[in-house]
């Protein structure tokens, strides 16, 4: 047989016969502890990502809403066939918002500012609605105000939901 081939076979055999790594791996419990330690930052990152995504989404909704007319003293004239806002849906959203704690576990400045801004706008619309009802305003105007309020409540739900997700993933 060719001497080079013999030497290569011998080398391969010697490699296969090398002993196992002298330093033994850590035990099962240590492995689990390290796995848990690695998973925590990953979860935190995922929570942050969810919050960021939802914040961007909420800001997008607000931007679109503002672009389409938004809140103004003279609400856009509605088409007569425009449907009334689903009152049950709005009530459900408000019920869910009421069930949330006043503040999330960790307060993010940007999100909090968005929440406060939306709550202020909802309060303004509520005031206006009360005043218009007392003045017996045109039903179309009342409907427009009601729809603007529904959109604002929807945006608030989005932001608060993102906060809830972030809290749960922490």
């Amino acid at each position, binding site marked *: 047989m060719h001497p080079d081939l013999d030497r290569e076979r011998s080398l*391969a055999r010697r*490699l296969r016969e090398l002993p*196992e790594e002298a330093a033994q*791996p850590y035990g099962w419990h240590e492995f689990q502890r390290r796995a848990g330690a690695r998973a925590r930052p990953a979860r935190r990152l995922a929570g942050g990502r969810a919050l960021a995504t939802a914040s961007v989404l909420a800001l997008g909704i607000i931007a679109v809403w503002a672009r389409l007319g938004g809140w103004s003293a003279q609400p856009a004239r509605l088409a007569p066939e425009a449907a009334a806002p689903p009152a049950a849906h709005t009530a459900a959203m408000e019920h869910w918002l009421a069930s949330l704690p006043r503040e999330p576990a960790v307060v993010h400045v940007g999100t909090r500012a968005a929440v406060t801004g939306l709550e202020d706008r909802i309060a303004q619309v509520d005031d206006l609605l009360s005043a218009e009802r007392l003045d017996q305003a045109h039903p179309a105007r009342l409907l427009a105000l009601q729809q603007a309020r529904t959109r604002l409540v929807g945006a608030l739900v989005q932001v608060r939901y993102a906060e809830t997700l972030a809290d749960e993933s922490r």
Partner: protein
Amino acid sequence: MTRLVEITVPEAVLARARAGDGQAQGAIYAAVAPATLTLIRRMVGQRAMSEDLFQDTMMTFYERLPQFRGEAPLGAWLRQIAISRCLMYLRSPWRRLCLSLDPADFRVGAAAAALVTQDYRGESIDLERALATLAPTARAVVWMYEVEGYSHQEIACAFGRSVSFSKSQLARAHLRLRAWLEPQENHPSCTLI
């Protein structure tokens, strides 16, 4: 040395581990961890990085265990995960910044030789040191071909290179290993009293 592919796990233990039984998962860990760490250490060389890759490998293994269908032996499946983790590390841009992967670059040898553990005795010390003198890519190719039984085609595929890359890496590594080992075989460096 027990190779990963030679390790078998009773089907009942495997089924329990797949279902999330912590005791069965611990038993599998005890069976496969030493061989897994050995494989990673031989492929990568550095102890600290080997431990990191070992942790990654085992975490991936347990995450994917429920999807293991038993088409290949469990050890072979785990070996595939471990080798893929090692190659990802060896090919990473960060690592390329730290260390040239030029096939001709064997300058890391001297530093790597110092990493060899002191617990081995006799012939294995020489071979361990010789392996440590190889560049990481060459060492990985030697280990995959000679010990794990991969073909040149499979190695080329794993590295994303040509078959001739694998062959030339192996040939050069053989030359280097022989140059390291043979003078010591002909002229023993110590005398038994």
